[in-house]
């Protein structure tokens, strides 16, 4: 029997030394080399990225997802900006956008907005934290497989960075028709976008699954 050892500090472990991988783009089977931190493996046939060993992957993913959750709380508590014109004062928040769409008889659009800017980013970061935090001590919490699959499913639908660009375009569109004041929520939103990028880019999907398999095998 092979003794499976897990050292959280060591580079990405693999279950079997002779494990093979197939390229996701061309299906070529090849050996999976053990990588040093910061290295990446590419397909011998088509040259696509196979997987990479991100430096300090677990602590990075955990740290950034905690940061993302904190900033998310701030982004929801404070408005991004307020606009005053003709005695009216309106504040912009993520939930405010959803409510405004729902109030204007666009319930489907409101739902989509809620999914893209609130639910998917929240699901993404909590799932990453739920997986990577315990993996730092080599453990997997119950339901880790389902959570990892939910994480992968939510990834393409988290669109806060697109929302941020939309925000910039909206500002340019409004031009100088109104008096605009920026608030702390905007800084929090930028921080959320940066943190989510750091968290999702912090760990390779194959590494996450390898580590989960190892933790489940204990």
């Amino acid at each position: 029997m092979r003794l499976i050892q897990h050292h959280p500090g060591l580079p990405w472990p693999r279950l079997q030394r002779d494990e093979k991988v197939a390229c996701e783009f061309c299906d070529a089977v090849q050996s999976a080399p053990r990588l040093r931190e910061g290295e990446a493996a590419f397909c011998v046939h088509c040259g696509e990225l196979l997987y990479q060993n991100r430096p300090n992957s677990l602590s990075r993913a955990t740290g950034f997802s905690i940061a993302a959750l904190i900033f998310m709380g701030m982004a929801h508590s404070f408005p991004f900006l307020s606009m005053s014109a003709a005695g009216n004062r309106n504040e912009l928040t993520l939930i405010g956008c959803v409510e405004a769409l729902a109030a204007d008889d666009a319930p489907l659009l409101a739902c989509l907005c809620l999914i893209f800017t609130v639910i998917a980013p929240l699901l993404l970061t909590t799932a990453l934290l739920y997986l990577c935090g315990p993996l730092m001590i080599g453990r997997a919490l119950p339901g880790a497989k389902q959570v990892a699959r939910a994480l992968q499913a939510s990834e393409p639908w988290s669109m806060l960075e697109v929302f941020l660009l939309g925000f910039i375009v909206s500002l340019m569109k409004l031009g100088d028709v109104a008096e605009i004041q920026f608030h702390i929520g905007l800084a929090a939103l930028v921080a959320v976008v940066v943190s989510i990028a750091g968290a999702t880019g912090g760990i390779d999907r194959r590494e996450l699954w390898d580590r989960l398999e190892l933790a489940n095998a204990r």
Partner: protein
Amino acid sequence: MSTPSFAADQGLASCHTCGRLSPATDHHCRRCGAKLHLRKPNSLARTVALLLASIALYVPAMSLPVMNVSGIGSEDGGTIISGVITFWEMGSYPVAIIIFTASVIIPVLKIVALAWLCLAATGKVGGTGHRLALTYHVTEIVGRWSMIDVFVVAILVCLVRLGTLMTITPGPAALSFASVVILTMLAAMSFDPRLLWDRQRRTS
């Protein structure tokens, strides 16, 4: 380099979710529990169906008003294109260019590129594997940015509620356009790039 061996030829399925290699006779991946397939099921049929649906929805997305601006005594519903033209004429070139790119260039190019990839996978058009793979990557990365327009509508609807002076409400094109973006994203996800290399292997 010697020709590599391919997983499907050895009866091995690589999991779409976690990347683990399993015998294709297993129905579910032993590591993550996802369903195993040698290739994404009905990849081409699904991609084509989603593309057709997105083309159908692109028509109302472009021809109906994307948001209604109502002010003192006037009501104005502009389409995405009329908005681009207005901003261009006003000299707001960055806004015009960003909106035109996000709402016209990216979706149209994405639909054309995916249709081209489907044709290439059935061998109707040529193209080297590398160039086609690059096309696939670009459509995957760039597609989500089309959603800018929908968020602009959401933000303006939230901010511009100035009673009788000026109020912006979402138009029917906003939902159509969001659906176009979602459908093209789903089409890109259901396309299996391995079909391109399968084709190349069979023809060479």
